[in-house]
């Protein structure tokens, strides 16, 4: 079994023969054209490539945001293909953490409530939710901003709240798409520091989609996508 073997080999993510296209029939637009790669557990992978190369689609498929039509993805021992909607939701809440370029915080909730919501979705009891939310917000240096709503926070602070939310349920795989795309250089550095520190502390695998060389430079591995395929010369190359 691919998942078990891969886990035994220390692989967190296995992708085999992955293809994806948008639309159907004559109007189908191929986005991913057959991907095969593994990501080691605990590694920090930068996913790079020009716009339209399929980076976000790959991230969506890894995160279980959309169904896999062709090929296989194994996250640890979990085979994503064939999971039903409810199972995918469970998978997202317990295995995956997302960090969005535009933060993706619910602006009607405070920073603490945003974190607690993710924990609630993961089925964590209330008292534990409150304690863990405070701890993780402390980890990202936002204890004094916990009661603020997103619109009362700077971009960097919002992204740190998003990181706190993503890591609050202790995911195995953290997926981030242009996490510093909307931040100035100083804020970006700080966010990346927090992201890297928490990744190491939590021992999770991090996949970051980025155009930013500074962000890519922090990765342990790089995957380069071009027209839906991995650019061979860069596959698995250590940073």
């Amino acid at each position, binding site marked *: 079994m691919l998942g078990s073997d891969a886990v035994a080999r220390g692989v967190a993510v296995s992708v085999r023969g992955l293809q994806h296209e948008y639309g159907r029939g004559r109007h189908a637009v191929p986005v991913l054209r057959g991907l095969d790669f593994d990501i080691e557990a605990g590694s920090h992978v930068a996913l790079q490539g020009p716009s339209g190369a399929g980076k976000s689609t790959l991230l969506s498929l890894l995160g279980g945001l959309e169904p896999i039509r062709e090929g296989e993805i194994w996250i640890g021992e979990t085979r994503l293909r064939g999971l039903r*909607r409810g199972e995918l939701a469970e998978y*997202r809440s317990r295995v995956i953490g997302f960090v969005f370029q535009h933060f993706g915080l619910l602006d009607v909730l405070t920073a603490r409530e945003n974190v607690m919501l993710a924990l609630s979705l993961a089925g964590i009891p209330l008292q534990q939710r409150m304690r863990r939310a405070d701890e993780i917000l402390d980890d990202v240096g936002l204890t004094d901003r916990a009661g603020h709503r997103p619109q009362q926070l700077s971009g960097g602070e919002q992204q740190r709240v998003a990181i706190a939310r993503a890591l609050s349920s202790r995911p195995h795989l953290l997926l981030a798409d242009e996490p510093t795309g909307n931040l100035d250089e100083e804020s970006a550095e700080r966010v990346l520091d927090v992201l890297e520190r928490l990744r190491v502390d939590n021992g999770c695998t991090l996949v970051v989609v980025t155009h930013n060389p500074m962000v890519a430079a922090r990765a342990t591995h790089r995957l380069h996508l071009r027209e839906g395929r991995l650019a061979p010369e860069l596959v698995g190359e250590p940073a």
Partner: protein
Amino acid sequence: MSWRDGIVLSLRSVVRRPARTALTIAAVALGTGLLVALASIAVIAETRVIAQLGKGGPATAITVDANVVDPAQIDSDTPRLGTAKPINAETLRSVKQLPHVSTVTTVQSQDVYVLPPPIGSALSGYTGDDPDRGLARPYSDSAIGIDFKQANNLPITVLAGRLPAEGSTSEVAVTLGYFDHVHLDPNKPAAVLGQVIEIGSPQVSPDGQTIRGRWSRGVIIGVVAQDLGSGGLVTSSTLTNAQRAWQLAGGDGNSFGLPLPASTYSSLVVVADSLDTIHTVRSEITALGFATTAPEHLIASVQRYLQVVDMVLGAIGVIALLIAALGITNALLAAVRERRREIGVLKAIGAHDRDVLRWFLVEALICGVSGGLIGTAFGIATIAVVSHIVNDYLVSQGLLGVDLGGAPVATSLIGVAGAAVLALIAAAWPALRAARLPAREAVGAL
């Protein structure tokens, strides 16, 4: 997602767009208010105007006449009366003991002469029937004597002023017929209040040759509409008792058309304990040998009309609710459009379809319950206003007023619960649409 988090999220989302929320709640409130008002009016019409009056019941009371029943007229609401049959204390006791009888009130009728002002007091601008001397012409009438403490059980409505005090021998009420005698406008009933009239009880001499009167003065304290018997004056039974005793102390006045009254009471007003038992009570009284009148057929007809009214009012209410439902659906569809990215993000961090469904349904429920509460309050206020207007109208028309009261509690509760259910139904489609949005929508936020 826990219920607590779901409710917090919904509450915050509701207040995020205050104008839209207010409009949605207003639509629900209007629909609910209209339905509550219409339903309440229909229910009130059914239960109060008919059933309650049937219990306390001036309009549906049974009148027992001091006559025998004509066998051919038993099924008539107003049968032709047979020969006289006195109603006395024994009759009263027998009727009171009948099953399903709620109250029995005695009515006395006494022949009197009435002398309007200015004999008693000056009336500004009055010329009277004798303009040369400015005097009014005395006329013969009947004084209806009742126990004013039982007035609520009698078909009598105050058009102006008030009813005389119980036991008073100096206060009287008059009907609109009095205005014909004094040539005043019956549409201004208050014009006669305060007038002093003289009331003469006739007594025929023992030899039957002469009549003399026992005169007393009475202040007109109220103008009433009544269905107790033919008579233009309504007085306390104390006064009519005295007048009756005076007449009985004299001789029989058959030759003057003033025979001694044979019956202690001219009639009894019987109220059954419910609308459904009117016929039974009436039959039992008939079995005692007395003629009765009761608006049984009228009530049945009114009930049929009320059912039609119920249907029409219900249809209007349902249309109002449908409009309110469309308002909720529209508002939530707009919310779903606006929150596609949020829904995607929520799903990306692990929300199930049911969590998103709950988010929107609870939001709709908040609008529904809020609108329901406001609408019900609005409906109750509407009923109060309508009740007031209806009562004023009935009284102005010389009809019996009715106490519409407030909205029935059940109707009010159904109003709130109905609005909540309506909100859920209206929200079902947008909420399902939101729940089925793919998690991929979050990528728009990537």
